[in-house]
Every structure is written in C-alpha cells, then in structure tokens.
C-alpha cells in the first residue's frame, strides 16, 4: 500500500504529520509505534516531520484524541524527554504543533506559548504553528491570539497549518469553538495567518480539510488563497516568486 506514497514522493516533497506518538505521555513512548514511524520516515524521506504538543496514551490504552497537557514543569520535562527520544530515533529534528484545546487544568503554571517555546529551546525541535488552533484556543480560553503569535520564536517556526472550525453552543448559551477540519478557513483565521506570515516570513502552509471534504476545486481555491498571501510576503522580502 505504501507504493502510492513512494510514487507521490518521486514528484513531490512530503511533510509527514503524526497524531499517534503521544509525546506528552508520562509513560514511555510506544516502541512498536515509534519503530513503525521511523521505518516510514526512512522509506519516504520527508522534508518535514511533525507531531503534537499533546498526549493520547496511558497505561497501554490509546485514547484516540490529542489530549491537552497540564502545563507544568513536570509535563515540560516529560515532553522534552520524549521529543529527545523521537529526534534521536529519527536522527533529525521534528516540528511540534500547538494543539487546539477545550479545557485547562487548574494546576497549570506555564502559558502554552511559553511552554511550546521552552520545548523548542530545550530539545532543538522546530514549531509547527497551527494558526487555526491558536485562534480556537484563544477564543475558548480568553487568550490574545496576537500575543500568542508574538511569543513564538521566529527562527523556529518551520510550517503553518490552517483549517476550518465549528462554533458550537453548549447548554443553550455557552459558545465553544471546535477544531474539526470540516469547513473553509474562517475570516479571522485568514487575518491571523497574515500576521503569522509577517512575523515568520513565507512559511510552508498546509490547509487541513479532512472531514466533510469538499469538491477538489473548492479545496484548490482555498489553497490558492493561502498561496496568494504567501507570494505577497515572499515578494515583499525581495524574492521573485515562491518556488
């Protein structure tokens, strides 16, 4: 089955994005899954490899979601240990993505943007800046999305993600935004993306639309919108066009 990926790899660079390594687990990484990921990356030679600032497994059970971490010194040490182990197994740097979240732990002591920057500083990993996730979490928790962007180290951001999200009303009155990758990128997120490009420069960008997948031309139009903004930033930096 991997033959398809080999064929695509011949003509296009790949960015491999993981959701299952559970880098925030207090338990050790799943050695079998890690070996599977290492083998895939060796086989396909992707340009970028990324995972999430989250956890999914405990006590040998995989909970099938990107669960938020308590943002404490202990959790910081744990995720740094696991990122170190992953990077050492892969013999390369990874990018770590900020999650969208719907809850915060009362014992968290470190703001998420500082936590993510600290993981990058301690392990040497890069950052995958998911602009939609910043917007979703900021709206859900009352953060300032521009402050979040401004706190990330410019030279460590290696990829940007954009996606659609849903505004849900719970108990008839409380709004919460859910990152569901099932619709067009929201206008506020496009605006935040422009801020991100101004800060980080022209950065490889992926639009995640993997539920309620639209017709290809709709998806291509969304990608073209991002491309146009990227080109503008690239030209402003004195380059002819994005390669």
């Amino acid at each position, binding site marked *: *089955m*991997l*033959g398809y990926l080999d064929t695509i790899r011949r003509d296009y660079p790949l960015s491999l994005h993981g*959701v*299952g*390594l*559970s880098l925030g*687990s*207090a*338990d050790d990484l*799943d050695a*079998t*899954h890690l070996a*599977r990921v290492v083998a895939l990356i060796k086989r396909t030679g992707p340009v970028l490899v990324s995972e999430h600032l989250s*956890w*999914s*497994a*405990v*006590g*040998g*059970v*995989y*909970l*099938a*979601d990107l*669960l938020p*971490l*308590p943002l*404490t010194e*202990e*959790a910081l040490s*744990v995720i740094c240990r696991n990122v170190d182990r992953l990077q050492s197994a892969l013999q390369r740097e990874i990018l770590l993505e900020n999650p969208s979240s*719907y*809850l*915060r*732990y*009362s*014992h968290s002591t470190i703001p998420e943007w500082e936590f993510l920057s600290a993981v990058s500083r301690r392990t040497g990993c890069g950052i995958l800046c998911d602009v939609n996730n910043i917007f979703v979490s900021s709206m859900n928790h009352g953060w300032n999305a521009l402050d979040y962007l401004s706190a990330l180290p410019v030279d460590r951001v290696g990829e940007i993600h954009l996606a659609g999200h849903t505004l849900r009303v*719970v*108990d008839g009155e*409380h709004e*919460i935004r*859910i990152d569901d990758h099932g619709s067009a990128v929201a206008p506020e997120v496009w605006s935040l993306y422009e801020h991100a490009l101004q800060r980080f420069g022209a950065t490889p960008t992926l639009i995640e639309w993997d539920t309620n997948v639209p017709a290809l031309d709709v998806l291509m139009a969304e990608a073209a919108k991002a491309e146009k903004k990227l080109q503008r930033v690239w030209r402003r930096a004195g380059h002819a066009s994005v390669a």
Partner: protein
Amino acid sequence: MPALLEVQDALRRQFLEGENPDVISFIEGGALSPHARLNIYHNTFVGTLTTALRLNFPAVYALVGSGYFEYVASAFIKRSPPTSAYLNDYGRDFPAFLESEETARGVPYLPDMARLEWAVSQAFHAPDADSLDLQRLASVAQEDQEHVVFALQPNVGLVASRYPIDVIWQAVLAKDDEAMAGIDLESGGVKLRVERRHDQVEVTRCGLDEWRFASGLVGKRCFGELASDLNPETATALLSDYLVRGRITAFTLAQHQYSERLP
C-alpha cells in the same frame, strides 16, 4: 499538585469507566463545566474509534445500520480500547464480542461476517513480503524435505463459516438487495482464502484439500505431516501452486519437533 501520570490515568478512567471526581477536580470550569469540556474529548474518543471499526467492518455496519453499530461499537470500545495508535489493527476481538452480544443474535452470521472482514482488513494492510526464493528450497537435502515448515504470506488469511458469508459480503457491499434476497442461509458452509493480490483483496472458496493444507501452514505443521494428512501427491501439487503464486515467504526445518510428533 497532581503528578502527570495521575492526571492521565484519571482521564483514562473517566473515558472507560464513567464519571471520575478526581479528574473533574483537576479541570478549570468557567462558563462551561469541566464535565462539558471533558465530553468534547470523550465524544472524539468514541467517534474516532467507531469510525475505525466502521472502516474495518463495513459489511457489519451495513447489515446492522448506523444506530445499532454505534451502540455495539461504544460497548466494545469500553471493554476493549485500542492498545496502539495504529487503528488499522483495531478490532481483532470485535467478532468474538459480537458473538457474546445478546442483542446481535438476530443476525446469526454476524460474528463470522466480522471474522471475514477482519481477515480482509489484515490482508489489505499486511506488509509486503518477498516470496520464497526457490533456489533456497533446492538446497534442502532430500532427507530433510519432510521436515520443512513453510511460512504463509502475511497477506493471506483463512476464514470458515457455516453460512455463505462470502456471497452475503459481496451483496452487502454492492448494495445488491436482489442478491441478498436470494441468499439461502442453509445452503451450506464455506471455507475461504482471503488474499491481497495487486493491491486488491480477493476472497476465494477453497476445496477441502486446500483448506487442510493452508490451515496446516497456518498451524506451522511440517510438510511431512501435511503429506500424510492429505496424500503426498495432493500436498506436493498444492505446495507447487502456493510457491508459484508467491504465497510462501520462507521456510524453517523442524526436524526435532516433527520427529517427536511422529507416531
């Protein structure tokens, strides 16, 4: 301050065992209660795994409908959550679970259908393995040949049922109501070889000789035993066919074990 492992284990218990006061106390409320916030994650947990089961068991899903499938999947997820993030491998125990589920008894062939779909999924996702180099086999000494244990390709599986599940499977996936209506459940059982060839999974009925031969390979029985069970000519012909079709990946010599089992 709770330790990270304590928090993570409390969430696991919340997801699998229900409301857990420990985890509620770790979470900030605000406009939304901790319970409502946790529910968002719990819904994704159940939804993602239900989708994984639906993808691995599409005919079971089509036969019972989305409402019952969600009910039975939810019960299964609680009892047998995945142990790995590799969700193509989730559902090994689902056929046995369906067998034990009182509410599924109305469709007597459902567990066998699930077994067939599990074999199809395993064949589809099995790693590519090289076929046996026949030169290696030629190097086995004459006196050792009956002690050879052959390894079957990981993309080949076997399923038996007292119902014509292959015909039902095809009719259900093709949404062929007419074919479904014409199926006689008492028309006799089937023995099936499930095999990936050229990126497609084929389900083929086996004759009794092939079934005994292939089951023997799965059971790691040596060729001498297979030859005495069937007869040497039949076993040799089947082995030749399996070798030519690339269904054998390797062999080992099991002289000692075989000698012990000989009468």
